C-alpha cells in the first residue's frame, strides 16, 4: 500500500511562560496509507491537535519530522502543503464575510483564481448544500452550517489528503450524521486520504480503516479495528453497575485471587462512569476475564458476600473503548 503520510519521532514540547514544559506529543511514529480514513482517537488534551498542527506546518516540531507525499513539512513546507487540505477544530472563517467570499479568499490562498476559482466555489457550495445561502455572512449561520463551510474551505483545491480535527464537536446529531457521511463519501467517491481526529469511539469505529490511539502525547496503539480489538479479544469485558459503598482494595484483591480466568479489574467511583447516567450513586466496575460467562457467577457471589449490591451486568464484545480501557485503565471520555 502506498504511503501518504509518514511521521518519524514527531515530538512537541511546549514551553510555558512560567518556564515549565509540556510534552504534548512524544515521539510519534506512524504511517497513513493512500485512500484510507485514519482516525487518531484520544481524550481531550491527548495531543491530537498538536500532532495535526505539526503535520500541517502550523507549528514547528521540537523533534522528528512529518512527510507528506514524501515532502518533509519542515524542509519543503510549500510542496507538502499543496497536497493537503486542513479543516481546523474551530470554525476558522471570517464571520464578517459571506460564505462565498470566505471560499474565494481561501481559494486564492491555494493559488486558485479567476473563473477556475469561481467554478470550484460553486461546486463546493453545492457539495456542502449552501448554494442558496452563499451571499449571507457567516455570522448569521447556524453552528452546523458554519461547520459545513469550514469543511468546504478545506476541499477547495481538491487535495489528495485531508486533515480533519474533531469536525463534529459542538453540533447536533443531524449535522454530525451529515459530516460523517461526507467523510466516507470523500474517501469512497473522491479517493481522498483522510486523517480524522476524535475523542469519540463511535466515530472512529464507524469511519476508520485504521486507528491510532493517543493518550498523554503517546501513541499507545495502532492498527485496524480488528487488530486492535484482537489485543483484548481473548478476554470478555464485563460491566457491572454496583453500589460503590462496599468497594475496597481488599475486595479487588479477593476477586483477582478467587475468580478463575479473571485478569484485570477497573473500578470507577460513582459519577465517573459514562453508563451511570441518572444513577448517581452507582459505581462502575469493569472486569476482564478469559471466559467471561464462567467467571460471572463467581464474581457476583463474592460481591454479594462482601455486601456489595449489583444493579446490572453486561457482557460486551471487545471494542475500541475496551481497548482504550485495557491500555490505560481509564474510560475514553473521562
Amino acid at each position, binding site marked *: 500500500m502506498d504511503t501518504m503520510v509518514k511521521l518519524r519521532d514527531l515530538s512537541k514540547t511546549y514551553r510555558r511562560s512560567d518556564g515549565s514544559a509540556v510534552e504534548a506529543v512524544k515521539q510519534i511514529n506512524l504511517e497513513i496509507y493512500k485512500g484510507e480514513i485514519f482516525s487518531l482517537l484520544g481524550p481531550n488534551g491527548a495531543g491530537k491537535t498538536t500532532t495535526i498542527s505539526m503535520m500541517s506546518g502550523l507549528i514547528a516540531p521540537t523533534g522528528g519530522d512529518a512527510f507528506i507525499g514524501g515532502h518533509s513539512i519542515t524542509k519543503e*513546507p510549500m510542496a507538502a502543503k499543496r497536497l493537503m487540505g486542513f479543516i481546523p477544530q474551530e470554525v*476558522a472563517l471570517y464571520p464578517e464575510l459571506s460564505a462565498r467570499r470566505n471560499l474565494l479568499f481561501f481559494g*486564492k490562498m491555494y493559488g486558485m483564481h479567476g473563473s477556475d476559482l469561481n467554478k470550484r466555489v460553486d461546486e463546493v457550495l453545492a457539495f456542502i448544500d449552501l448554494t442558496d445561502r452563499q451571499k449571507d455572512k457567516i455570522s448569521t449561520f447556524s453552528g452546523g452550517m458554519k461547520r459545513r463551510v469550514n469543511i468546504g474551505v478545506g476541499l477547495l483545491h481538491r487535495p489528495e489528503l485531508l486533515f480533519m480535527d474533531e469536525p463534529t464537536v459542538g453540533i447536533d446529531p443531524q449535522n454530525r450524521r451529515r459530516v460523517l457521511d461526507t467523510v466516507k463519501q470523500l474517501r469512497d467517491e473522491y479517493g481522498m486520504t483522510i486523517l480524522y481526529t476524535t475523542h469519540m469511539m463511535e466515530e472512529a469505529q464507524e469511519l476508520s480503516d485504521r486507528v491510532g490511539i493517543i493518550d498523554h502525547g503517546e501513541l499507545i496503539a495502532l492498527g485496524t479495528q480488528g487488530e486492535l480489538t484482537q489485543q483484548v479479544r481473548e478476554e470478555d469485558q464485563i460491566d457491572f453497575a454496583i453500589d460503590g459503598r462496599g468497594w475496597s482494595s481488599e475486595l479487588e484483591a479477593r476477586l483477582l485471587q478467587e475468580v478463575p480466568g479473571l485478569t484485570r479489574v477497573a473500578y470507577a467511583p460513582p459519577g465517573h462512569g459514562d453508563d451511570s447516567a441518572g444513577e448517581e450513586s452507582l459505581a462502575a466496575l469493569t472486569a476482564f476475564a478469559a471466559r467471561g460467562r464462567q467467571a460471572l457467577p463467581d464474581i457476583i457471589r463474592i460481591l454479594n458476600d462482601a455486601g456489595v449490591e449489583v444493579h446490572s451486568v453486561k457482557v460486551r464484545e471487545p471494542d475500541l473503548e475496551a481497548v482504550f480501557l485495557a491500555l490505560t485503565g481509564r474510560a475514553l471520555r473521562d
Partner: protein
Amino acid sequence: MRKIWAIVSKEVYITFTNRNLLLIMLVTPLVLSTIIGLAFGGLGGGDSGGLSLSNIPIVIVNLDEGATFGNALGGGFTADNQTGGGQAFNGGDQIVAILAPNLAEGQNAFGASGDQPVCSLLPEKGADNSRRYSGTLEELFAPALMDDPAAARAAVDRGDYAAAIIIPPAFSQAVTPQFQFGPADDQATNAAAETDVVDSEVEVYANAGQPIEASVTRSVVEAIVGQLVRFNVAITAMGQAIGQQIAASPMDLGDVDPATVPAQGAPLADWLAFMEANADRSPWFAGLAAGLTRFQAAASGDQSAAGGAANNDLGGIVSCLFDPNFEPIQVQQQPLNRVQEQGIFQQIMVQIGAAQAVFFALFTGIFGVLSIYEERKNWTLQRLLASPTSRSSILAGKLGGNVVVVWVQLALLMLFLTLVTSAIMRSPVNIWGDQWGLILLTTVALSLAVSGLGVLVVGLARTPEQVQAMGPVIAIFLGALGGAFGFALPDALANLSLITWGVGAFKSLAAGQGDIWLNLAVLFGQGALFFVIGVWLFRRRVEI
C-alpha cells in the same frame, strides 16, 4: 504577490464594510474636527492657544503714489465745481490706516484729521462700525512700517514677521473709480479696470513657517483690496447703467421732454439735475440721484448735502467701503470680518482636521495590527499558515493591508473635511491645496509611519491585552503632542509626535508651499524604523 494582494483586499473590505468601525474611523474624527474647528474658528481674541491668532507680526511697505480723484471722475465733474483740480486719493495710505491705525498718523489718505476714517454715509452708526473693525484688526495684527520692499521680504524670511504687505506705486490708480458715461465704451472701461488691478496687485509676502498667520493676513488684505476694487466696479457699473438706461431705451422716460435729457458726456451735475427733476418718474432715478448727490457733495466738500455728517472728506466715504452696512450698489459684498473668519476656519480645519485624522488613524494602525492576534484566536491565521503561502507573504498582506486601510481612512477623512468646510463656508473649497503629488506623498508617508507605529506597539507588548490598554494611551499622547485637541505644545515636545510632522506638511501644502521634504523624510524615516523593529519583535512573539 497575488496572495499578498488578496490578503490586502480582504483587510480593506472587512474594515470598510464594518459600520461600527466606520463610525469610529470616519464619523467621530470628522465631527470632532468640526466642533474644534468651529470653537477655534472665530476671531474671538487671543485664546486660540497655539494658533496665536492675535498680534500677528506684519510689515507694511506702502509705495502707493496716489491718484487724483477728480481727474478720475472725468472733466465734467471738476469743471462744475469750485474745488477744481480734484481730490488727492491714496489707497495705500487707506490700507495702512486700516491695518495699522497707530502708525498711520500724518499720512492718512486724504490729508484730513489723521483720525480713523468714519463712514460718513451712515451718520448714526458710522463711528461704531468703524471702531468694530479697527478694534478687531488692532488685536489681530502687530504692524510695522518699512520703505524698502526687499528689506521687508528679508525680514519675513528671517522670521521677524509672518508676512509683508507691499502696496505697489500704481495701486490707487487702479482702484480709483473710472467714470465713463454712455454705452459706447463699455468694454474698454471694463478691460482697463481689470488690467489695472492685475498690474497693481498688493503683494502679501508670507513666511513659510507661519502659514496660518500669513494666510489670515492675506485674506484680510484681499478683503480690503477687494472692497476697493468692488467699489470701483460698482461706481463704473453705475455710470454705465445710467448711460445705457438713457441711450438704449429713451421710451422708458415716458413723457420726459427729450430736449431736457443731457447729451452724452455731459457733466455729472447735469445728469444729477436731470435725475432729480424726474425722480418722481422712477424710483431708480430717485435712488441714483440721492447716491450721486451724496457722493458729489462729499467729494466737493459740501457739508449740507452729505447728510449732516461731521466728516466731509473722502476718507469718510472710502471707509464706507469697509462697512458691511453700506452697499453702494447691489454688488456681492462680504463683510470683512466674515472673510477673515473663513480664512481662519479653513486653516483651522486643515490643522485640527489633519491632526484628528492622523490621531484616529493611529487607532486603526495599532488595532489593525492587533487583528493578527484575533485571527490566531479564530484559527483563520492557522488556516492561512496551512495553505501554501509563505509566512512572509501573510505578514506582508496583513501589514500592507493595514497601511492601505490607514491610507484610505486618511484620504476619506481629508475629502470629508474639505466637504464639511465647504458646507460650513457655503462655498466649495479645497482646504488641502492643489499640489496633488505632494499631498499623496504625505498621506503615504503618514500611513507608513502610523502603521509602523502599530507594528512597533503590538511587537513591544507582551499580550494583546497590553495593547488594548496601552494603545489608546500612546495614541492620545501623540495626539496631544501633535495638536489634535486644539492646543499646541512647545516644538521640542511636539516634534516627538509624527502627527506634528504630518500636520506641518499639510499646513504648508494648504498654504501653497511645497517645501515639506523634511517632514516627508521624518515620516518615511519613522515608518521604516518602526516597521523594521516592530516586525522583528512581532515575529518573535507571534511565530509568524
